[in-house]
């Protein structure tokens, strides 16, 4: 699971009002280099919850993202590379996503988050 996906997900358990961002329990992180597409990154930048991305990347062991950002930073190649690395090259291969309200763990196996709810959670 890339952090782009993490940034889009929340816990949708019945009754949970604040299911975002999900905490990350790391068992195995892998890095897979992919080609950078600046247009895609610029497009995605507006949709990203920045703080959640920064926190998530730190919990995955990558601390190079700045806390504060604005869109002018997208002109910097160095910033784009860091953003790209955090968003698309870090993978949570094994671990779990944790609902911030209830502590319910959504398992991540083989890079696939299992977001399906139990019968009593819908």
């Amino acid at each position, binding site marked *: *699971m*890339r952090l*782009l*996906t993490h*940034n*889009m*997900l*929340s*816990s*949708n358990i019945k009754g949970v009002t604040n*299911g*975002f*961002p999900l905490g990350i329990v790391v068992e195995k992180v892998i890095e897979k280099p*992919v080609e950078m*597409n600046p*247009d*895609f990154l610029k*497009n*995605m930048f507006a*949709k990203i*919850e920045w703080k959640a991305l920064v926190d998530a990347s730190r919990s995955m062991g990558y601390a190079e993202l700045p806390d504060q950002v604005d869109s002018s930073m997208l002109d910097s190649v160095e910033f784009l590379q860091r953003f790209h690395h955090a968003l*698309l090259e870090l993978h949570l291969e094994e671990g779990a996503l944790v609902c911030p309200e209830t502590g319910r*763990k959504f*398992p991540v*196996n*083989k*890079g*696939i*988050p*299992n*977001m*399906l*709810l*139990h*019968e*009593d959670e*819908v």
Partner: protein
Amino acid sequence: MWFLCVFYHRLLDYRKPEVESLALMFGAFDSDDGGQDGGEHLEWRLPEHHHPDSPFHFVDLPSEDVARDIANRSILVKGIYELWGEGNNYEELEDAIKDYPDERKLPYLSPESTFRITVDSFGKVISFQEQNERIQSLAYIPFKGQVNLRNPDHKFWLMETDDYGTNNGLPPVVQKRIFFGREVGGADRKLLPTYQLKSRTYLGPTAMDAEMAFLMANQAMVKPGKLVYDPFVGTGSILVAAAHFGAMTMGADIDIRVVRDGRGPDCNVWSNFKQYGLPTPIGLLRADNNLPPWRPGLKEVFDAIICDPPYGVRAGGRKSGGRKLLKGVVGPYTVPDDKRTDHIPSTAAYSLVECVHDLLDLAAKMLVLNGRLVFFYPVLREDESTENHFPEHPCFVLVSASEQILSSRYSRVLLTMVKSSPYTEEIEEEARLKHLEFKENHLKWMEDGNLHSAVFSPGESVFVAEGDPKVSKETKPKYRGKYV
């Protein structure tokens, strides 16, 4: 500028919508009103006496570049040609070609260039010798260049149609007509054998066949850098086509075995992309289309949503909630804490109406403005009135509906919709109430939308009401899709 557009004689309903989608994608309407999606159509014309199902059409396109782009990307266009002449016989053709202005012809006949003439026919076979005779008879065109059969600069086509009788299930097409033109562009159907399902490593029972998957990607106007989502991803067959055209892909499925495990380390959704050297999806997850786990503020992230929803004929949809629970067999229960970690939640059947409602609501929220939703919708063929009852949504305008006949009982229709207005709070609230109604009346909706029994019920019960069963059967065209 008018071009001759010749189609492969397949999937007749899909031909023009594909060209129109590609025309919009390649900027054919850009000068009109800033490329607003939804309202534009190309101007089409049929050759004299041709049936609308004829493979020969004339189409008005703004430039040769746009025509080439469309033809090269298309799946169903055999070629787009600059027509130099046409006629009902070879004398008429000669007159027409001679009348065609020299300044259009001579640049393509120059001594420095290479060329090739191909003789093609529709509805009959022309022997090799006859082909040669026909090519020789074109000697009145002043070809100065060198012949190069393999890789010529200019490709010329001589195409004939003839009356081939009515035995092959097609409508009687045309009187004999001959076309001669210069090829502007042609489809690359070589990608179909490359991607054909029988060489795909990981397949499911409802994997989308390669030709249709590419068509769906074209309807969705997939381009490099776009983000495409399939909420019923299965083995990824639709996303493979989108990835081939350069899109970033994302998929979800409720069945964890399909998305996570596949049939082993080298036979899963990821391997289906690696097999063709395509970038793997940027995200795959297990999620329920009925209760999507997207964070509340997230909207307008996907450029296109392409999918084949489970409509309960070959594969039924599932959603969270528990089979017995929703049927009212058992009361609400809680999973004991010590069993939570490895608990496998039971799922309930998911009716088509609810599934499509959820899909439209999700798409309305998650698509960018002018983003496209492309999906299959099943139609019972007995019910003539269903034709006008495609699902609707205030955020979407229907762009095209193309039918593919699957059996005498039912068809599937590829619906292409464009998001034309933003997702408002009122629409969100309405969708929430509808969601609750579906949940509370689970059983009723399951019975109402049961396509499986309609498709597989015994024959008599279907045709009794229509009087003579034979008559009603024969009025349905059979050739549109299944046999062509």
